[in-house]
């Protein structure tokens, strides 16, 4: 199969995920809750970003056992994360039949200079970005989907908004340039010239553009969709929810019900992102969203979005 046709298949799956919610899950039961709520895909990982942030240590690709359990628990696509630049982890995930690989800043980077060359893989990749230049570099390496980095595990949408606005603002500016200004723009963006030309002509990214990193409520999901996201990743916002009794003991059934309720609300919020009256209904009486972190409270060296370039 030629390279164009291969890329069409990869982008094709990204197209199928539009208008949906992709949920981080840590167990097969989480995956079933996600599917039951109407998620269009799940992201299998051992620790959701909020836990990685709390517990520290090196965060790596998930155990294949977990990925296989999740693959057999649900019929929707299963994604999984690899460390930036760790192409061996990506080869392993491809062998496991994962449907999409997220080369993710949420895990500890394996290479500070090079991202994975994604073209030779049959499995499609999604990569995070903070701005248009970063998005185009990843697409140049073969990413079939782009998402904002946001700041994962914070329950704070501010960084995802910053990154989405940076991408769409730069797209608008690029579309106003003359052809003879595009090489300088490519230099400034640090992006491949041919891609800059394509994007300047079409006014949009050549692959789907999703939101991630801090989405915690139906309103957050609507905000990102209205800012131009075509789907939403929800990481810690659902399975970080726990319900405890007065002595602090976790109530399993009530926790599951609360997680399902939030998951359903976010799925419906994405489908109805531009209908405030529906969003109002969906937001009413929801379980408490994760407490969240302000950006100022996070030491600069712990910011995940700075990983990768």
């Amino acid at each position, binding site marked *: 199969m030629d390279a164009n046709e291969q890329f069409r298949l990869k982008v*094709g799956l990204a197209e199928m995920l*539009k208008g949906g919610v992709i949920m981080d899950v840590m167990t097969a039961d989480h995956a079933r809750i996600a599917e039951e709520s*109407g998620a*269009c*895909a799940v992201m299998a990982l051992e620790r959701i970003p909020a836990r990685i942030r709390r517990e520290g240590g090196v965060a790596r690709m998930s155990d294949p056992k977990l990925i296989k359990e999740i693959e057999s628990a649900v019929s929707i696509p299963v994604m999984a994360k690899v460390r930036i630049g760790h192409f061996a982890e990506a080869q392993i995930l491809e062998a496991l039949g994962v449907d999409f690989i997220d080369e993710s800043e949420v895990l500890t980077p394996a290479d500070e200079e090079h991202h994975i060359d994604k073209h030779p893989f*049959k499995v499609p990749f999604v990569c995070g970005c903070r701005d248009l230049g970063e998005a185009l570099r990843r697409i140049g390496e073969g990413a079939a989907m782009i998402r904002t980095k946001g700041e994962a595990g914070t329950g704070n949408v501010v960084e995802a908004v910053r990154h989405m606005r940076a991408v769409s603002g730069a797209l608008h500016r690029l579309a106003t340039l003359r052809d003879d200004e595009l090489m300088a723009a490519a230099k400034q963006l640090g992006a491949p010239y041919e891609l800059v030309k394509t994007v300047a002509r*079409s006014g949009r990214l050549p692959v789907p553009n999703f939101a991630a990193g801090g989405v915690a409520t139906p309103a957050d999901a609507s905000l990102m969709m209205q800012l131009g996201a075509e789907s939403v990743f929800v990481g810690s916002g659902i399975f970080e929810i726990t319900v405890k009794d007065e002595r602090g003991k976790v109530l399993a059934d009530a926790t599951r019900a609360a997680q399902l309720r939030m998951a359903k609300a976010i799925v*419906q919020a994405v*489908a109805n992102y531009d209908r405030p009256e529906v969003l109002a209904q969906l937001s009413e009486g929801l379980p408490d969203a994760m407490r969240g972190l302000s950006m100022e409270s996070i030491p600069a060296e712990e910011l995940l979005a700075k990983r990768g370039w």
Partner: protein
Amino acid sequence: MRVPSVGVLSLQGDFARHRASLEALGARVVRVSLPGHLEGLDALVLPGGESTTMLRLLELTGLRAPLETFARCRPVLGTCAGVILLGRDSGELPAPPLGVLDIAVERNAYGRQVDSFSTPVETAVAPGFHGVFIRAPRIRRVGPGVEVVARRAADGEPVGVRAGRAVGLCFHPELTPDLGFHRWFLAEVAGLALPGAPPRAAAGMWPGDARAGLDGEPAAAGSRGAR
């Protein structure tokens, strides 16, 4: 000339790609996500995406019953997840499918994403058509009164069916630049008169010249003008 009005079910999936293909043929496209949106439509398209997600959202939005009624008596085209929705027996799903086409469909029957493929399709509808199959369903049984309109060239397996004005395809004509299936559905199946493409959208739309863009995106040429 009256412009035909075509709805695209837009709860989840690649509805924007269908929109681009239909607009290139001169149709007015309506985003269908609430029951009221079905009023006055000449035809309806059920896109690719996650069939389980769409079925759940159909129940939650109250669209299921009116959509079923529409699909039983008006022209409807389903691609990939859409054919799963239109089938009678589609395996384990959160809700029964619409049952408009008397076929049995198996979801993700070719395997996971690494098993997705594109292949020549044998069809009188659009000669030389190349089908894109993404985690595609397989038609396991074709009932009486259902006509096979497309087969995989390699092994003759049925990948496109029609019964009356309902059409189901296992592949994604909305992901390739060849508009043959969309044109056939609107003109032949639905019997709609097509005004033809607006000139701007037509540039880069036709089979020969559409591979220029990185993803062969049919919307690319027209979308900028529309902004």
